[in-house]
Structure formats: C-alpha cells, structure tokens
C-alpha cells in the first residue's frame, strides 16, 4: 500500500543519502550523478504509480489520478531541469551535497503538496517545499556579489508573509466550516461562498500561499529579484516545479468552490488580468534575460488561471497540458542561459547578439522555446493556449479571453527580441560555445518536445484526461 507513494519515498531516501553525504567527502561529480539517478528513479516511480490510486493516513492523503499526474510532472520536470543544467556550475563549490539535499526535500514537499487533501498537512508540505527552496537561493558560486544573499532574504520574507496570510485565511475557513478536510470543505463551500462574503475572503486569503508559488499578481514581486540573484539552475527549478504544484492546488480549491462561485471567479479573473498585463508590460523593458523570464512567468500564471477558471473538461486538461509545455519551454530558455554563462553570470539581451554564429544549436533552442512561450504555432505554447482559451470561452468568459489574447500580442514583442538578438549579425571573429555531447542531445530533445507535443497533442490528452473527472462533480 505504501508503494502508492513510491515517488515520495524515493525523494525521502535520496534526501537521507545526501544528508549523510554532506557529512562525508564525496566528489562533486559523484554527488551530481547520484542526484540525477535519484531524480530518474523518482520519475520511474511516478510513472509506475501513475494509474494506482488510493487513500492513505485516514483520508488525509489522497492519491487520485490528478495527484499522480502532477507528481509525474514534477519528477519529469526535475529530471529535465537537472539534464538542462547538468554540472551545476553556477552553484557554490563544496555545497553540492546540501544543494541536492534541499532539492530532493523540496521535491518531496511538492509531491506531498499535490497529494494532500487536508489543510494542515497541506501547510506543512508547502512549508517543507518552501524552506528547502529558500535554502537553495543563496547557494550561488558568485559569492562576492550581493544579489544572491539579497535574493535569499527576499524569498524568505515574502514567502513567510504569504504563509502567514494563508494561515489567517485558513482560520476563517475553519471557523466557518469546522473542518480542515478538503472533501468536507467541498460539500459546504459552494453554498457558503454564495451567501457568506467572509468565505470568499477566507478562501482568497488561503490561496495566498499558492499564488505566491505560482507568482500570481500581487504576490509576484519576489520573482524577478530572486531569479536575478539565484543561480541559473536554481532559478530554473523555481520557475518550473513549484508552479506545477501550485497549479494542482489551485485547481483543487477552485473545483471545491465550484464554477458557480461568481465572486471568487471575479477575484481570480481580476488577478489573472492584472498578472498578465503587468507581467507582460514589465517584461517589455527588461535587459536581463532572467528578469525578463521572471516577468514572462508572471504573465503565464495569468494565462494558466484563465484556463483554470473554465473548470470544464477541456479547460482543465488544457491547463495540465499547457503547464507541462511551460515547464519544457522555460527549461529550454534556462538551458540556453546556463550554457552561455560558463561562470554562472547573468546574461543580458545584448549578450545574445550573434548567438547563431557562436552556436547554431543554442540559437535554435532559444528560438523554438521563445516562440513557444509567445504562442506561435506549431509549438505546444500555441496549442495549449488555444485549448485553454477555448475552454474559458465555453464558460463564456469573452472579456477575459479577449484580454488574454491581446496580452499574447504584447508578449510576442519581447520574445521576438530574444530571437532577433540571437540571430542578428555580428562582424569579426566570435568564440564558439562548445557543448558536450549530452547537452547537444538535450537541446535536440527540447526542440523536438516543444514542436512534437504541439503538433500531436492527442498522445498527452489521452494521459491527462483521466485526471480531470476527479475535479468535476
């Protein structure tokens, strides 16, 4: 029975291993190999557990297809991130064991987050994930600079504040419903939301912690600074994995509230609109690519919420589909950054100039990933957005979709800037970027994944669709 939580067990064991490894003196390379093997093992475990469902710990821990689906996504995302940033050159020397320890613990927390259906367990697993990731941020090789520390502090303070708000909101919810179980909450919540404004406030405040992870407006302020301060590897992790888990939780809560909760829908659609618009407009003027990607992540949180609010078969499955695409596309962008910065330095748009001559493969990866994020066919970015918005239109959210579509148009400009810089001509000799073989394969895999998943979505939908009914009653 405990095999149902095999991915969690794998992460826990790996965390223990790295804990003891931190005491000993293992070589950096060995530790990284071990970390990659652990991630692969977790991925296999998640794939094995995919269609196995059940309840554990007196109903606190629900393993439905949805949670297993997101667990698979988190594990696959971890493997991808580790592959893209193989070598972890940007992280601090001598702290490899600790880095991997916190990475595994963080993923353990994320896996727990997507499976738990009880509020207190939820808070605990959220904090496990948060604290592990807090510790990752300052572990950057460029120690002399101020940014990593500043980023670490910012991440902790903002995160702590968000957790406090979450707990405050939870006290309202508990006061109103006398339960911390999501199943019971789901029974009384729709009626309460319709009559009791306090329930709306409570639920919105409760989701603060989730929105923080998702980087939804107004809890997105940490993201640009943390990205700039953290190593590329860490930023890549933070941009992808917690977002996936947060989407799962938000889906669960929105589904518990029901699609008829108009006030809640109003609140979240406002947040989505602000998130998209502010994210995209802020990204327009950015020079630092990580900062640009951070704001693009804020905008993407908005798009995802548009899809989530649809709360129908098409909308939910499209959100999961798009999210997996977002993970791959973002990882693709960070992969290029990581390969371009041998010392782990931050890259500006200006540094990309002439990339096609320094490394045609990196330029192509960036072009495909950025076009994907911009939503240009035939990438997964287009197909996913199309299906999400179609789902939202089925609920007749015309204005919301119209604003989202206009935002995509704004966003195209800054993604195009990246591509244009990468393909602009430079005169004279340029130094070529040398890629190891595994990195070449990784780039090819990223390009193929972004294009093929966009062109042949049916394969993914077959896998995702069984996860949807758990949310729809």
């Amino acid at each position, binding site marked *: 029975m405990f095999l149902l939580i095999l991915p969690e067990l794998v992460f826990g064991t790996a965390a223990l291993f790295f804990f003891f490894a931190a005491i000993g003196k293992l070589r950096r390379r060995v530790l990284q190999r071990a970390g990659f093997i652990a991630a692969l093992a977790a991925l296999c475990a998640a794939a094995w557990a995919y269609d196995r469902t059940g309840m554990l710990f007196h109903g606190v821990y629900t393993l439905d297809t949805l949670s297993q689906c997101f667990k698979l996504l988190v594990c696959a995302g971890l493997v991808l991130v580790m592959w893209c940033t193989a070598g972890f050159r940007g992280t601090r020397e001598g702290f490899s064991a600790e880095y991997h320890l916190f990475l595994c613990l963080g993923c353990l927390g994320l896996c727990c987050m997507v499976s738990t259906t009880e509020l207190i367990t939820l808070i605990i697993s959220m904090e496990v994930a948060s604290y592990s990731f807090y510790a990752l941020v300052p572990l950057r090789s460029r120690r002399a600079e101020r940014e990593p520390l500043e980023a670490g502090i910012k991440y902790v303070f903002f995160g702590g504040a968000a957790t406090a708000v979450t707990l405050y909101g939870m006290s309202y919810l508990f006061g109103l419903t006398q339960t911390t179980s999501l199943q019971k909450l789901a029974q009384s919540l729709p009626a309460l939301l319709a009559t009791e404004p306090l329930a709306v406030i409570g639920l919105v405040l409760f989701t603060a912690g989730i929105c923080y992870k998702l980087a939804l407006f107004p809890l997105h302020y940490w993201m640009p600074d943390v990205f700039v301060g953290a190593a590329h590897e860490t930023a890549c992790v933070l941009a992808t994995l917690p977002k996936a888990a947060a989407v799962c939780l938000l889906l669960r809560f929105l589904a518990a509230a029901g699609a008829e909760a108009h006030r809640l829908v109003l609140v979240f659609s406002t947040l989505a609109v602000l998130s998209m618009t502010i994210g995209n407009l802020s990204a327009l003027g950015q020079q630092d690519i990580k900062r640009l990607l951070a704001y693009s992540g804020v905008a993407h949180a908005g798009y995802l919420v548009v899809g989530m609010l649809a709360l129908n078969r*098409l909308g939910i*499955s499209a959100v999961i589909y798009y999210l997996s695409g977002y993970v791959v596309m973002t990882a693709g962008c960070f992969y290029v950054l990581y390969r371009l910065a041998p010392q782990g330095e931050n890259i500006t748009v200006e540094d990309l100039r002439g990339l096609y001559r320094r490394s045609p493969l990196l330029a192509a990866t960036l*072009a495909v990933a950025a*076009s994907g994020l911009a939503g*240009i*066919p*035939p990438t997964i970015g*287009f197909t996913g957005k*199309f*299906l999400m*918005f*179609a789902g939202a*239109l*089925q609920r007749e959210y015309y204005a919301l*979709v*119209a604003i989202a*579509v*206009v935002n*995509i*148009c704004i966003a*195209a*400009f800054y993604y*195009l800037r990246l591509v*244009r810089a990468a*393909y*602009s*001509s430079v005169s004279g000799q340029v130094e070529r970027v040398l890629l190891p073989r595994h990195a070449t394969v990784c780039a090819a895999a990223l390009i193929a994944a972004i294009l093929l998943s966009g062109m*042949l*979505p*049916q394969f993914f*939908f*077959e896998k995702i*669709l069984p996860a949807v009914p758990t949310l729809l009653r």
Partner: protein
Amino acid sequence: MTPSLLLQGIGYPVLSVLVCLPLAGAGLALFVRSAPAVRWLAVAVTLLTLGASLPLYSSFDRTLPGFQFVEHRAWLPAAQFDYIVGVDGISVVLVLLTTLLMPLCVLCSWREVQERVQEFVVVLLLLEAALIGVFVSLNIVLFYLFWEGMLIPLYLLIALWGGPARNYASVKFFLYTFAGSIFLLFALLMLYVAAGSCSMPELLQQPLSYELQMLVFICCTVAFAVKTPLYPLHTWLPAAHVEAPTAGSVILAGILLKMGGYGFLRFCLGFAPAATREAAPVMMVCALAAILIGGLLALGQQDLKRLVAYSSVAHMGFVVLGIFLLSSRGMQASVLQMINHGISTGALFICIGMLYERTHSRLLADNSALGALMPRFVTLLTLCAFSSFGFPGTNGFIGEFLIIVAAFEKKWILGAGAVPGVLIAAAYMLRALQKIIWADRSPHHHPRETPPRMFSDIGLREVGILLVLVFFIILIGLQPSVVLDLTRASVESLANRVAGAGR
C-alpha cells in the same frame, strides 16, 4: 461525411504530399553543406512540388462547388480536432500559383543570395510548405497553424537577407501581422466554441447567430485587412518590400497578400455571410480608398520597389472591391485578379531584383536610359508592366475589366470610383518605364554621353524566369478561362450562400 467533402482520389494523398515535400526538402537541406548543391536541391524540391501539384489542375472536377482531394484523419479527438485538407475552386488556383512561383523565387536569388545559402533555402522551403498549408487546410486550427507558421520564416527572410533598414522593416512586419493574427485567433476560438467543431465544411453548415457573425467578421477583417493589405492598414508593406530580398518580395507580393483575399472569401463570406452583407459598403469604401491612395502614392515614388509596393496596395484594393461586390462575377474576377497580381507583380519584383544586381540601386534616377544597354530586359519588363496596369491583351486587363464591370452592375458610382485607379496605374507605370528605358534629360540625349556603365543584359537564366511569367501573362490575357473555369462553380455557390443569408 458531409456531402460537400469529396474524397476523390487520384491514387495518393496529393495535398499532404504538397505540404510535406518542401518540409522534407527543408530537412534535407539542413545536411547539405555546399552552397551550389543546396541551391540545386532547392530547385529540385520546388520543381518536384510543382510537378506534384499538376494533377490538381488536370483532375480537378470543374463542375463541383465543394471541396475535392479531401483527406480526413483524426488528430486530437479529445477536442474534436481533425486533420482535414482539401481544395475547392478558389484555393486550387492559389495552390497552383504558389507552386509555380516558388521555383522562380529560388532561381531569381541564384546570384543575389551569397551568404548563408543553406539557411536561405531552408527558410524558403518552410515558407512554401506553410503557404500551401494555408490554402489547403480545412480545419481552422490547422489553418491558423500554417498562417502563423509562415510568419517566422518570412520574418527571418527579411531580417537576415534584407536591406539596410531590415531590422525596422522586419519587426514592423512581424508586429503588424502578429497583431492581426491575434484577432484571427479570437475569431477562430469563437467559431470553435460556438460550433463545437474546427472543420470548415461543418462550420459552413452551422448557422451562426447574427451577433456572433458580426464579431467573427470584425475580428477576421482586421486580420485579413492587415495581410491584404487594405487601406489604412497597409503601412507595413512598403517597408517590408523595400528591405526584403527579391525572393522575399516575390513571395510577399505574389502569394502572401493572396492569403488576405483568400481569408476574406473563406472566413468572412463563408462563415459570416449575413454580417458580410451588412458590412460590405464599408469594405468597398476602404477598397476604393486603397485603389486611389495606393495609386497616387505610387505615382510619387522614386524607389522602384516602393513604387511596385504601393501599386500592390492599389491592385489588392481592386481584389477586395471585387470580393465585397458580393456578386458572382465580381468575386470570380477577384480570384482571377489575385492570380494576375501574383504573376505580374512577382515578375516586376524579379525585374527590379535583376536591375539591383547590376546597378546596386533601386532609385529611378540611377536606373535610367537602359533601353540601349539591355534590350532583352526592357522588352520583358515592358510586358510585365503593361500587364500590371491592365493593358488589353494581358491578364491584368481581364481582371480589372471584369471587376469594374461588376462594380458598374452593382452601382455606377462604385465603377466610376474605380476607373481613375486604372488611369493612375497607367500613369505611374509608364512614367517608370519611360525613365528606365529612355530617360528624358534632353531631347537629343544619348546614353553614350554618360560615363560608360559596365554591365550586361540579362542572361539565359533570367530570361527563362521572366519568359515563364510572360507566358502566363499572355495566356491568361487571351484565354482567361484557364483560371475562370476552375473557380466558377465554387464562387457561384459562395455567392449564392451570401445572397441567401439574411439577418
């Protein structure tokens, strides 16, 4: 299977082959390093595609209005997406135009493009696949996929091989068309949600409410008006044309602009007939404005490419006018005029490209008095220019004549408004021709008085390219039924559909 879908076989899935051949060619070109080899590969692939498209002409059943050569496969059953391709009379001629122009694009850049030939060929072949895809898609999402898929290659074509201001022009082109496409995306989303299907034949059978039709019409019109380009959304075109390499200009003018006209016919008239009838007067006014303003702007240009670009605005104004007359004759003439414009403007851009290779300038002043130096060139140039302003006996005459007749049939004022456009066209073309051939600095001016210029007349390859186009200019001019027969049935059924639609 709906009756409008005709699974008429010629033994192999011809339309998929047409889309996949250039794609495969592009993939192959990635592995060919030497520049001459990759050029020959491009010629072979485009000619092969042309050959593969010929059955479309010979086996197309001219009596049927529906879609033919249809292929239907499941793509994303979870959301009712299917892979459907097929052609009717309107799209089949545009597909043929595309496959005809692409080999010429490769040939005309033989000497012009010397850097990054491999990438150039890849981009060109990707463009061909996307362009054919746009015309054959019968699924609106697939349509959008190809529609946008064409954007990046063309952007790269301008941004990488373009002239000095290519950055400005390429970004302007991209943002203009992308902004337009976003409106299209919104319209497609609404069509999809309203009808629950993405297949065009099914959408054609579902009556949509008037309000929805109006919304779809407005969104689609913005997208297609940018592409066509219709006054006042035309400002990206001259910039893009001037900076684009010759092949880019030929594709842009010859094929890409036709996507706008095709979109009007397929989406606005097809899916929103009632709204179209309501909005047709506005569109006709815009079209007349495009004809007159485009022509007047062309009259004042010193840069040859800019001149032809503005003349394109005017010509496409004729096309849009013909479409929104909503009569069978007008629409048929519009489709014919799209083909004509593709051939003659394509030929003009190729001519300008040839001039530029020799004089390294596109200014009229730098290219004057060439008649004695390049007799072969100016002969062919004259033919193309005559076709462009609609000289009787050329294809341009038939198209513009039919559109003006249809306009007079509809309302005399429309016809009277369009006639000055023809006169202006003759004025700007003859002005340019006269300068290029004779120049009139003094009554007895002789080319020998200027410093001798060292360049030769056009060679065999260049004569060949232009002769192909001149052949079609004269063929359609004397025998327009080669095109009109193909389009008649489909256009008539579309005209009936619009005529039968009421609020």
